[in-house]
């Protein structure tokens, strides 16, 4: 069909200039009917295509609504049995059907925020380095690509490396400062997470810093400001919302990260005593216990955990996205 249309396009001028009129009238009629049929087919195909596009876009919405609905429906048994106590119940004991997720909430918040605190200086440094000091050249090119590769390494590999290299190191450190030398624990997972989330805030910070208008910077220089003073009193205030958005995206990543954390956090359901003790995050509990959940309320409690995780990460991501949008519209 496609070739025939192309022929049609080529022969059309011939028809209008009347060069083919020599052919018999019947042939003309047949051609005309054919063309009408063809354009009908084209119109139908066009409509089908348009409709397909709309259906695909609708499916996208339905998919996300379906995800939310599934999570909510499946966690109803747990919501019914525990209510709001679910969030601050201090014991998680599947054998006795007691499901309180406070230890996991605490574990998640501790690991993500510690990771964030460790990684922010590094990611902002990369952002400033690439956005302000050395925006061009091969050194910054290498740095940019390497930092982006940090995000590309699969999390299970970070976990394995952490297990083999970082855990013994942390264990040695713990013996030195006199806490239980377990090696596995919240501190170790924060370290791994910190490395994993550097690229998110760094690349966003870089593009935001590059968008600072140069006349603002030049005005500050003309007043006699040093480079550091320009960065502190022009660039950082100007890009504040963008940098904050970067932090939000990093946080969203850290909260949802599963595998690397599961492998090095130690997996206990007890409330962590200090930052070196083993614990569990929401994601790691789901990863560990989902296939073991043998009765409906247990499974449903894990799904409710997933629902909490979903809501928190989505809200944080949306805040980040809104901030970026607001920044680029300015």
């Amino acid at each position: 069909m496609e070739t025939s249309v192309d022929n049609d396009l080529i022969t059309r001028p011939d028809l209008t200039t009347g060069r083919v009129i020599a052919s018999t009238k019947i042939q003309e009629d047949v051609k005309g009917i054919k063309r009408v049929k063809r354009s009908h087919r084209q119109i139908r195909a066009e409509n089908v295509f348009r409709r397909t596009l709309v259906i695909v876009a609708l499916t996208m919405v339905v998919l996300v609504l379906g995800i939310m609905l599934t999570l909510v429906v499946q966690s109803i048994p747990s919501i019914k049995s525990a209510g709001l106590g679910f969030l601050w119940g201090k014991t998680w004991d599947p054998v006795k059907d007691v499901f309180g997720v406070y230890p996991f909430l605490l574990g998640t918040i501790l690991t993500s925020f510690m990771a964030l605190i460790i990684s922010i200086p590094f990611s902002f440094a990369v952002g400033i380095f690439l956005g302000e000091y050395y925006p061009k050249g091969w050194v910054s090119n290498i740095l940019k690509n390497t930092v982006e590769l940090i995000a590309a390494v699969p999390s299970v590999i970070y976990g394995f490396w952490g297990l083999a290299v970082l855990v013994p190191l942390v264990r040695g450190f713990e013996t030195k400062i006199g806490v239980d030398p377990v090696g596995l624990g919240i501190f170790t997972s924060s370290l791994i997470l910190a490395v994993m989330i550097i690229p998110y805030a760094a690349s966003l910070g870089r593009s935001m810093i590059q968008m600072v208008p140069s006349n603002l910077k030049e005005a500050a220089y003309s007043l006699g400001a040093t480079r550091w003073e320009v960065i502190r009193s022009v660039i950082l205030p100007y890009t504040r919302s963008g940098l904050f958005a970067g932090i939000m995206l990093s946080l969203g990543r850290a909260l949802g990260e599963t595998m690397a954390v599961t492998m090095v956090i130690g997996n206990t359901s007890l409330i962590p005593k200090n930052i070196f003790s083993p614990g569990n995050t929401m994601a790691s509990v789901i990863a560990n216990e989902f296939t073991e959940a043998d009765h409906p309320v247990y499974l449903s409690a894990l799904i409710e955990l997933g629902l909490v995780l979903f809501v928190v990460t989505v809200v944080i991501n949306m805040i980040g996205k809104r901030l970026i949008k607001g920044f680029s519209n300015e």
Partner: protein
Amino acid sequence: MNNTLVKYRIGKSIGFQALTILLSVACVLPLIFILVYIIQAGITKINWHFITNLPKPVGEIGGGIANALVGSIIIIACASLMAVPFGILCGIYLSENKTSKLAYWSRLCVDILQGVPSIVIGIIAYFWLVKPLGGFSALSGSVALGIMMLPIIVRSTEETLKLLPDTLREAAFALGLPFHRVILKVIVPCGISGILSGVMLSIARITGETAPLLFTAFGNPYLSTNVLKPMQSLPLLIFNYATSPYNEWHDLAWGASCILLIWVLLLNIFTKLITRKWKVQL
């Protein structure tokens, strides 16, 4: 007095620059450590035997990861088969209807989907496919990974097509081409490099995903090509063997990590080269 103040300020500025450079370089170190360590530990394990054999039971030396390699390829292929056409069509819709209400909601949903933790997608695939089908299956793993691919493909398609000049589309319409041919024969071929790099990026991203496969594809010690049965994949194998207490299994996991790492990095570098060659901006 004035002179010392100026010197102090300049010194502070230089000090900050040095600190920035130091911290930036420090960022790269962990990655280099990890790359070097994994490749050192893994490269010696990789040989023909390792690639073509099944894992041996504990206590026996040798064995390979053929089942995980085959499984990974099948799962990723199925996921791409589902997600790539869907994602590209959705991206086309979003770039063609920038202001419609449906486009707004659909864009919002793509944003939401991008932030959903991978483990939650695993739960969803479990309830949508594993439970109704009555058992763990590679297909459910593919669906989970496909859902994770969608946001990246949709975004890259939309952004690429947005950059194309309107005159291109108008010229095609002026020739009398119907809408679907304008899109499929003119617009999409013009933006193919951006779309392709989005697809490759999404494949690189899901290749290393473990969490959604934990309770969907589940893992399988034997070679399986049936998508309705549990199937092993590289990241699952690494997770299971790395957390086991046996040294032979650790060796297998190191070899597998090395292969996975090289695979993912090559995909990423290849994507970079494509984007640079065709000057795509993502």
